[in-house]
């Protein structure tokens, strides 16, 4: 499913005009994006939480050419799946 399909599904489920559903989806993901850019955590109960982790730089190697390359330190969001979603997805 992509974002426009998510918008359509939300519009259908809530009886909202597409434009409104689009604004809702953009607002919710926009809030999450802003929080992560600021380095804040995101906690949506039942769904999951995000926090930005700092990764150290390291010297790596291009596996194709064997060339040494410096990998700069970076920050990446880490998503921890919430309890409810974890249990619902794990169908085994």
């Amino acid at each position: 499913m992509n974002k426009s399909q998510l918008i359509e599904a939300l519009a259908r489920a809530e009886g909202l005009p597409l434009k409104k559903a689009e604004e809702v989806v953009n607002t919710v993901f926009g809030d999450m994006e802003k929080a992560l850019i600021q380095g804040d955590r995101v906690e949506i109960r039942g769904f999951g939480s995000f926090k930005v982790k700092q990764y150290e730089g390291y010297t790596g190697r291009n596996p194709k050419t064997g060339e040494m390359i410096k990998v700069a330190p970076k920050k990446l969001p880490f998503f921890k799946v919430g309890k409810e979603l974890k249990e619902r997805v794990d169908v085994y």
Partner: protein
Amino acid sequence: MALTKEKTVNSVYHQVGLSKSQSRTVVETLFEIIKSTLEKGEDLLISGFGKFVVKEKAARRGRNPQTTEDLQLRARRVVVFKTSGVLRNKINGGS
């Protein structure tokens, strides 16, 4: 301060112009659609944000690091998140 569902409800209320209770219902429904999509084993791609991917993990032998006891870990299905390049650049101070 962590972003919570209640804060996103407030943003929807202020920015989309739905009533407070409708904003709350709509945000709940949005996350329910996302969860049931992933539950069906379908990935969810939010362009510019990232991708939630359902992964099948094979059963494997594991070990309890504390007791060093060997154990069998069953096959599982899990959700992983892959950050979009756009968001990743924004988080790292790029444009």
